[in-house]
C-alpha cells in the first residue's frame, strides 16, 4: 500500500488557539498519512484535538484557531498554499467533510434539492440542470432516501435522513477523501448501524478514503483499517484494527480506553475507566502528557517527552516501549 501516493499527508501539524492567557496548543506535532481507499479511525476523548485537526485539514479553522506549524498535503497539494478561489474549488472537489453536527448542517430555509444543486453547481457551473438533477437523484438512491424528499425541507426529515443527506452532499463531487467527524454521534444505535453500513458500502463503490473521527472505540475498530489514538493533541498510538482488538502491546492510554468498553459477552461486568480528567491544554503536564493519569508512569515520564517507538504495525509513543522500558 505504501508505494501509492497518499491522499492525505499531515506532517508535524500544530494548531493553536489564541486565548487571553496566551497560545494554547490543541494539536501538537501530528503526523498522519492516509492512503487511497483506506479508512483511518481517529479516536480520543473530547478535547483531544480530533475535530480541530479535521478543521485544519479542511482549512476551515475560524477565529482564534490557527495552524502554527507543519504541512498538510491533500493529493500532493499543500492545502495552505492555495489562494481563496483555488481553495473554494479544491475543497469538496477533492476533499469533503461530514460534520459532527450534521443535524444542523443543512440550511433550514432551503430544500434538500437546492442544497445539493448548490454544491454541484458551485463546482461544475457548466452542467445542465437535467444533469445535476440526475446526479442528485443518484445520490439520493445511494444513501437510500426516497427521491421525493429532494423537495423536502430539512425540518421535514428525521435526524438519520438529514445525516444521510449530508453524506450525499459530501460525496456529490466524487471526492478522493472524506473526513467524517463523529457522523453518527447524535443518532440512536439502530440508525447508527444502518448509516455506518451504508458508508462502508458507498466507500467500496466510490473508492474514496475516509478519516473517521469518533470517540467510540468499538465503532472505529469495526470501520477502520488503521486506527490512530489521540491524546492531548498528539497521536500516541498508531495501529490497525486487528491489533487494536487482539494485540497485547498498547499505549497505557489505549489500554485504559479498551478496558472501558463494556464486554457484553463476558461474565466480568466490571468496567474500568481511566482515572482523572483530560489535561488542561493551558497547563499541559511536562514530559508525557498522560503521565499524571498513567498507572505505569516512571520517573522519566515526568520530564522527558516520549518519541514514537515503531511496532510491528504502527508505533506507540511511550517510554515503556523504549529499549530501557519494561515492554521494550
Amino acid at each position, binding site marked *: 500500500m505504501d508505494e501509492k501516493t497518499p491522499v492525505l499527508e499531515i506532517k508535524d501539524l500544530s494548531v493553536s488557539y489564541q486565548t487571553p492567557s496566551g497560545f494554547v496548543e490543541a494539536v501538537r506535532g501530528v503526523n498522519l498519512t492516509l492512503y487511497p481507499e483506506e479508512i483511518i479511525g481517529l479516536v480520543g476523548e473530547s478535547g483531544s484535538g480530533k475535530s480541530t485537526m479535521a478543521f485544519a485539514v*479542511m482549512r*476551515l479553522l*475560524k477565529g482564534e484557531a490557527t495552524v502554527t506549524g507543519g504541512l498538510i498535503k491533500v493529493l500532493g497539494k499543500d492545502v495552505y498554499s492555495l489562494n481563496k478561489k483555488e481553495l*473554494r*474549488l479544491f*475543497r*469538496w*472537489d477533492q476533499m*469533503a*467533510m461530514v*460534520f459532527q*453536527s450534521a443535524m*444542523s*448542517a*443543512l*440550511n*433550514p*430555509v*432551503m430544500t434538500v434539492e437546492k*442544497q445539493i444543486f*448548490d*454544491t454541484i453547481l*458551485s*463546482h461544475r457551473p457548466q452542467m445542465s440542470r437535467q444533469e445535476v438533477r440526475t446526479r442528485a437523484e443518484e445520490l439520493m438512491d445511494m444513501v437510500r432516501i426516497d427521491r421525493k424528499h429532494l423537495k423536502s*425541507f430539512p*425540518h*421535514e426529515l428525521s435526524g438519520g435522513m438529514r445525516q444521510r443527506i*449530508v453524506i450525499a*452532499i459530501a460525496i456529490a463531487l466524487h471526492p478522493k477523501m472524506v473526513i467524517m467527524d463523529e457522523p453518527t454521534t447524535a443518532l440512536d444505535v439502530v440508525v447508527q448501524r444502518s448509516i455506518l453500513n451504508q458508508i462502508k458500502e458507498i466507500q467500496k463503490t466510490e473508492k474514496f478514503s475516509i478519516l473517521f473521527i469518533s470517540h467510540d472505540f468499538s465503532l472505529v475498530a469495526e470501520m477502520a483499517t488503521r486506527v490512530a489514538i489521540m491524546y492531548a493533541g498528539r497521536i500516541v498510538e498508531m495501529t490497525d484494527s486487528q491489533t487494536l482488538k487482539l494485540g497485547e502491546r498498547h499505549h497505557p492510554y489505549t489500554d485504559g480506553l479498551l478496558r472501558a468498553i463494556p464486554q457484553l459477552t463476558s461474565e466480568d461486568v466490571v468496567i474500568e475507566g481511566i482515572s482523572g480528567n483530560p489535561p488542561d491544554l493551558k497547563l499541559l503536564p511536562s514530559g508525557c502528557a498522560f503521565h499524571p493519569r498513567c498507572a505505569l508512569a516512571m520517573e522519566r515520564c515526568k520530564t522527558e517527552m516520549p518519541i514514537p517507538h515503531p511496532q510491528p504495525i504502527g508505533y506507540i509513543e511511550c517510554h515503556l516501549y523504549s529499549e530501557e522500558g519494561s515492554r521494550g
Partner: protein
Amino acid sequence: MRYFFNRLGFLILSIWAAITLNFILPRLMPGNPAETIFAKFQGHMQPSQLHAMELQFGFSNKPFILQYFQYLGSLLTGHWGLSYTYYPTSVSQIIVTSLPWTIGLLGIATVISVVVGTLVGILIAWRRGGIADSTLPIATMFFQSMPLFWLGLVLVYFLAFTLNWFPMFHGYSSSVNVGWNWPFISSVIYHGILPAIVVFLGSISGWIIGMRNNMINTLGEDYVVFAEAKGVSNSRLIFMYAARNALLPQVTSLAIALSSIVGGQILVEQVFSYPGIGYQLTNAVSMEDYPLIQGMFLIIALSVLLVNFLVDMLYGRLDPRVRRRGTES
C-alpha cells in the same frame, strides 16, 4: 394554502373584534359628545337644542344589539359619521385624504430604513471588526437615542428656518395645483425629505444592530460553515445561507414597525404639520371630535391587523417551518 386561509380567518376574526370594541368602548363612557358641547356652552344652550344635537349625531335609545348591527351596516357602506371639526365633511373623507400622506411618507421612509439598515447590518457583520462595524452602529445609535420630535425640531430649526434649504411645514406648497403634475409631485417630495430623514435616522440604528447581531449568530451556524466548505460562492453564502436565516427575526420587527406607522408617528407629523393620520388624530383629540377619533382608531386598528397579516404571509414565504406549523394547528 391552508396556512393562508388559517391566517385569513384569524385576520377576519380580529377585525371583527376590533370593530366591536370600537363600538362598545365609547358607549361605556359616561356622557356623550352632545353633552360635552352642551357643557361647553355653560347654560347658553337649551335642553331642546341638546336633544336636537343628539338626534343629529345619531344617538338613539334603540336596543344595544340593534345599534350594533346598524353600526356594522354603516361601517360597510362607508358611513363613518361626520366630523365636528370639519363639519360637514365625513370622517371617511378625512381618513381617505390623510391616510395616503402618512403611508406615503412614513411607509417609504420606514421601508428605506429597513432595507438600508438590513443591508448595512449584513455587510458589517460579514466584515466584523472593520471600521464600518465599529463606527456605524454607534453613530446611528446617537440619533436613535434622541426623541424623534426633538431631532425633528433641531432639523427644522437649522435646515429649514436658519438655512432655508427645506420647507418648514405642510405636505406640499400652496402655490401648486394638486394633481398628477410634476410641480405638485416635486413639491410633495421636497416637503417630505425632512420628515423622512427624521424617521430614517430615528429608526435605522435598530435595523443595523438587529441584523448585525442576527448575522453574527447565523454566520457561526453549522450550515453556514458547511456551505462554505462545500464551495458556495461568497455572495450566495452571505445572502442565501446566512442573511436568509438572519432575516427572520427582522421580519417580526418589521411587523411592529409597520403597524406603528399609521398611528405611531404622531409627534413627527405634529412637528412638521404634516397632513397625515397622526396630525389629524391630535387635532381630533384636542377638538374632542368623537366621530373622527373613533374613525381614526378603527383605521389604525385595521392597518395594524392588515400589516400583521401581510407580514405573516411574508414570514410563511421566508420560513418553511412556519408554514408547516400553520397547517398543523
